[in-house]
């Protein structure tokens, strides 16, 4: 395998893992409420920025990371309580506009409170690149990339366990399948909504913290990442967890390979063309789960 190919694959996997985490966040909220949360990208931003600010203030890195994810989760819970719950019953499009307003608000607050500087975050276990396959013909990997990939795997495993083995997780799945029936058996949809927002926000913040040592963080990083995460979620089939992960990795790989082998100027266009083609030929995304429509 050529060095260039290996390097492109590694690059694609790294970015893809981040897209996967963001996409998972979209999937969880969508499942609970049928809403596309356009503020998902801002959770990523909050995670990275908060961690950077805490580190600057002198907190040790592990504590900053945990605190940042906690802050992200808190913002997600607040968003649900203050903005989504009062608007329950509104048409889905209205809820989407509310999340758009929330993303603008969060960005404005971040710029106000934390400033517009681009901030670095120290890597979790150092910067020394790991060489694979020899210095001349091989590729290099940052230790941080291993953290990104490993944590994503761990998160996916933990979520699988949560949704399939715990009562609360199964309750959330029930709501996503049939809200009315779930209410009838006594599941509190309100609580499920709250938990889903908190969980998605935590995932987003985690993604932000993981990627910040590689690509820095700033008040406006949420826009692009949120968009690509959404695209990944759609590619995988909205509402499907494994689909979101597959979609994220696929999108990252298509982008990196497009950049390395076709035209790097058009790599984003290439990625979206592939996405569109996939949607046209697989109208329910990679996971293929159709949504039954009531007549």
């Amino acid at each position: 395998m050529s060095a260039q190919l290996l390097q492109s694959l590694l690059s694609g996997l790294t970015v893809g893992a981040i897209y996967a985490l963001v996409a998972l966040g979209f999937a969880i909220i969508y499942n609970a409420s049928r809403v596309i949360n356009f503020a998902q990208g801002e959770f990523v931003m909050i995670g990275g920025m908060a961690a950077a600010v805490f580190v600057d203030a002198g907190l040790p890195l592990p504590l900053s990371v945990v605190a940042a994810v906690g802050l992200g989760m808190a913002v997600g819970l607040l968003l649900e309580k203050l903005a989504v719950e009062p608007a329950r019953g509104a048409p889905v499009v209205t809820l989407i506009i509310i999340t758009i307003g929330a993303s603008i608000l969060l960005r404005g607050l971040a710029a106000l409170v934390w400033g517009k500087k681009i901030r670095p975050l120290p890597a979790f276990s150092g910067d020394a690149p790991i060489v694979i396959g020899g210095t001349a013909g091989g590729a290099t990997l940052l230790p941080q990339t291993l953290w990104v990939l490993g944590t994503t795997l761990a998160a996916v495993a933990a979520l699988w366990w949560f949704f399939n083995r715990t009562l609360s997780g199964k309750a959330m799945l029930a709501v996503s399948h049939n809200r009315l029936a779930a209410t009838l058996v006594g599941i509190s949809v309100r609580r499920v909504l709250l938990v889903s927002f908190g969980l998605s926000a935590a995932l987003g913040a985690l993604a932000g913290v993981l990627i910040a040592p590689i690509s820095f963080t700033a008040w406006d990083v949420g826009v692009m990442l949120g968009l690509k995460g959404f695209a990944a979620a759609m590619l995988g089939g909205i509402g499907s967890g494994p689909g979101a992960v597959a979609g994220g990795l696929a999108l990252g790989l298509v982008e990196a390979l497009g950049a390395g082998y076709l035209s790097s100027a058009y790599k984003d266009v290439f990625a979206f063309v592939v996405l569109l083609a996939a949607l046209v030929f697989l109208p329910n995304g990679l996971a293929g789960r159709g949504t039954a429509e009531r007549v």
Partner: protein
Amino acid sequence: MAFRSLWAIAALAFACAAAAQPEPIRIGAFLSVTGPAAFLGDPEQKTLELYVEKVNAAGGVLGRKLQLYAYDSAGDAEKARAYVKRLIEQDKVDALVGGSTTGETMAAVPLAESSGVPFISLAGAVVIVEPVKKWVFKTPHTDRMACEKIFTDMKSRGATRVALISGAGGFDRSMRAECLKVAGNAGIQIVADESYGAGDSDMTAQLAKIKATPGVQAVLNAGFGQGPAIVTRNYRQLAIGAPLYQSHGVASKQFVKLAGDSAEGVRLPAAALLVADTLPDADAQKKVVATYKREYEARFKQEVSTFGGHAYDGLMIVLDAMRRAGTTDKGRVRDAIEATRGYVGTGGVVNMSAQDHMGLDLTAFRMLEVRSGDWQLVDFRN
């Protein structure tokens, strides 16, 4: 009845008193304070506010105080246009200083030209002053100058086969186009031309492609924002040996901080402002840059930026022109701006003319190299 007329007289007297105050000189500014180009507009706005205040404290210009009307166009050309309309029609400004990005500047150009308002732009692309437009000037060095300076330095190190990597923003694309244009004349051959997107996290795929291209002797990254910092780190990660050049778009301590150790040995062209402390005293710009740096940092507790410096130069050139013309009549001020000679600013020594509405030459750019986390002057001319 008498009571009411007393009020009327009092009001009239007050109005007359207010009118008796000399009319302020109105300076209009439209800057990208928020949005993707915020690190351009933010120091620009701070600089304008600081120096309008200082000039007023020293008595103003032509016996009149300055009044600043500054709007945030957030990097959006449409917004910039609307704000410039507002500045010209509603706020009735005497001169315009602004347009942090080329897109915003170009959107404002037709308005400045048709309404006849002197406009000093703070954006980089060469199209702003080429072809020359009667009412439009600019203070920052052009991207073409940056290319020429970099190519000259590359040749002096024996590198003529060069790879280009640039981002998706206006600055990036414009500089890339200029570099491709002037490469031939400068004796440089561009052997690779890669790009990355806005907000991308990792450029190793593109750099791996460059590494796999045979015979690359130097690499130029035309960009600003976080992209170049990521490119620099990826560059060292891939252990690419050829020298790396950045553009003046990242001429700031922030870039060095973000790129960390991987910035060691990176070269870029920049204004003398960046090395204000280490400039020899005999240097023509020493006094101006050292003073600006001291005053800005004391007030804002932030590192100076060359973009703020361009705003400083823009404001001072306008005020200097007004003083020389002895009036705020827009036509005479415009003529006076065009006649600026030997003005020492943070960007260099300015000599404008009817054909040159920027006034800087290649000596205004200094080649700097990052060593031990700080800037070092590489060429010791001027």
